[in-house]
Every structure is written in C-alpha cells, then in structure tokens.
C-alpha cells in the first residue's frame, strides 16, 4: 500500500528563547499539506504563519469562534501574516491546518484552520495568501516573546496515491 499521509518534518522547541520555526524546501510531491502545532507560549501572544518568506501585506483571514459565552466572527484584510491563535504559559493551544493544492502555480493559496485554546476559545478560520507561487516554505512565528520548550510543529504531506 502506498504511503499517503507522510511526515515531512517536525520541529520541537528546545529552551526558552525560540520565537520562529521554519520549514524550507518543501517538496511539491504531495497534493495537500497538513500541519499540526501544539503551542505553549511565554505569554498571551499570537502564533502566526506565513509562506515563502513573504512579509508583505498579502494575507487575510476570517474566523468563527466561541469564547465560552458567545459566538463571534472576525476578519482581517491585507495583513502580513495569518494568525493561528494564542498560547499561554499554563495552557496548551493546538492548531490543525490544511493547505490544499499547495503546490499549484495558478491559484492563491487557502488555509483551513481549527484552533483550540481550552482556556479562552475554540474556532475555525480560513486564511488566504494572495500569491500564485507554489508553497515551498512555511514559517511559524510568535508576535512577541517566545514559545515554551516542548512546543511542537509538524508538517505532513498528503498524497493522492
């Protein structure tokens, strides 16, 4: 049987001074990418993602979230990143993202996210990168401060066959 859910790479934060993790040289051999993050940060900060080292204002996002008392939807346009959610020093945050058709060179790239912070909120988010290039690099970074040791970031490639 062909392997269709293939690990590409994992980064585990060691120490207390890491604020960025990058995956580069991502092969175009898959149909889709799935990333799984388990994040603990040094404060109530935002973990973010961007592609191919593009720091321009080429990202946008829309979400649906619940904070334990109400359901809301928010959006951001022309941002320099897509936000994945927050982590705190005392609580695990997990994010599971899917980037479908990530390697095509024709369309903008869309990310489907499920983000979970059991102490604050849960939700689903769509992110858009307005660029037609194939995604070959993914950077996770934190808005301020650092992640706590043990935070993990894993990429999987999904093959059609």
């Amino acid at each position, binding site marked *: 049987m062909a392997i269709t859910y293939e690990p590409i790479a994992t980064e585990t934060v060691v120490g207390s001074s890491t604020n960025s993790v990058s995956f580069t040289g991502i092969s175009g051999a898959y149909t889709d990418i799935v990333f799984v993050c*388990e994040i603990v940060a040094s404060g109530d900060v935002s973990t973010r993602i961007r592609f191919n080292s593009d720091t321009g204002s080429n990202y946008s996002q829309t979400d649906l979230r619940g904070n334990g008392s109400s359901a809301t939807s928010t959006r951001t346009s022309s941002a320099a990143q897509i936000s994945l959610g927050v982590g705190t020093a005392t609580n695990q945050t*997990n994010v599971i993202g899917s980037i479908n058709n990530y390697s095509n060179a024709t369309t903008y790239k869309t990310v489907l996210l499920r983000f979970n912070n059991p102490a604050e909120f849960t939700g689903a988010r769509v992110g858009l990168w307005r660029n037609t290039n194939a995604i070959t690099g993914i950077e996770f970074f934190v808005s301020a401060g650092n992640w706590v040791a043990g935070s993990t970031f894993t990429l999987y490639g999904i093959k059609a066959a």
Partner: protein
Amino acid sequence: MATTYKAIATVTLSSGGAASIDFTSIPQIYTDLVLKISGRLSTNDNYYSMKINGSLVNFSNRSLLGNGSTAGSENWVDNYNIIAERADSTANTFGNAEVYIPNYAGSANKSLSIDSVTENNATGAICFLNASLWAGTAAITALGIRNITGGNIAQHSTATLYGIKNS
C-alpha cells in the same frame, strides 16, 4: 517507510450496545492520536464524555455550536466533550466525531481538538466544535468515550483509534 497514519484498533458495538467504548494499552510510538466515531446513544442524552486513562474528571472546554437557527458558545467545566446523536433522533442516523490529540505521550497537560456533528433531517441537529483540556501530565495509555449519563451507546456505533507518526 513506516505507515504514518495507522489504525490501532476499531470497536463496533453489538446488540444492546455498551456504556462505553475503550481503547487500552495504547502504544507510545506515535506523535498524535486521532479518534473517529460514528455513533448514537441509547438514551435521550446529548453528549459523550471523554475518558483519558480511565478518568472522567479534570476536563475543561470551550465550545462553539450551531443548531440550525442560532450559534452559541459554552464554557464547560465538566466533560461535555462530544455531541451525540440521541435515541429519539431519526432512526438509523448516527453522528460523527473526530478527536485529535497532539503530543499524547508528552508530559504536559493534554489539549484536544474535537469536531462533532449530528444531523437528522429535522430541527435539533447540531454542529459542535470544542477545545478541550485534560489537566493531566501523564502519557495517555487509555482512551475512551462514555454516554455522559451512564446509559448505553447504541448498537452499530463504531470508533477507530489512529496513531500518527512524524517519522
């Protein structure tokens, strides 16, 4: 290369159902666990509870739900973890759920991403997204679901536990 997304075990309930579905002696060789459920309760209750290492306590949740007319959010301190198809739902309808547990063998508290849905071609169907935290630092060696009130989970309900490797 090793199989990365591997079915560890599947449980299908037979006649009469059972109060819970349990997976024990979970190997510690994966990075993440995924539990996929097709199920229905034998009682008119709305939730499954998660069981981790046999424990039904120390869970907290932030949930987001929609029922076809309104959307809301709850802050459960109990184990209202997964929405379930009720016994009085349309016959033969089974709800679906996926529970994703990253880093289940680690020494930190365990965060769960849970998506669950019910649909019965009528009002009362629910889409339920949940962030759940189990405040326990032990590696997960046993995982299960239980009818929240202690009644049974119905016959033909199925759960499969998958292990995901990163190498």
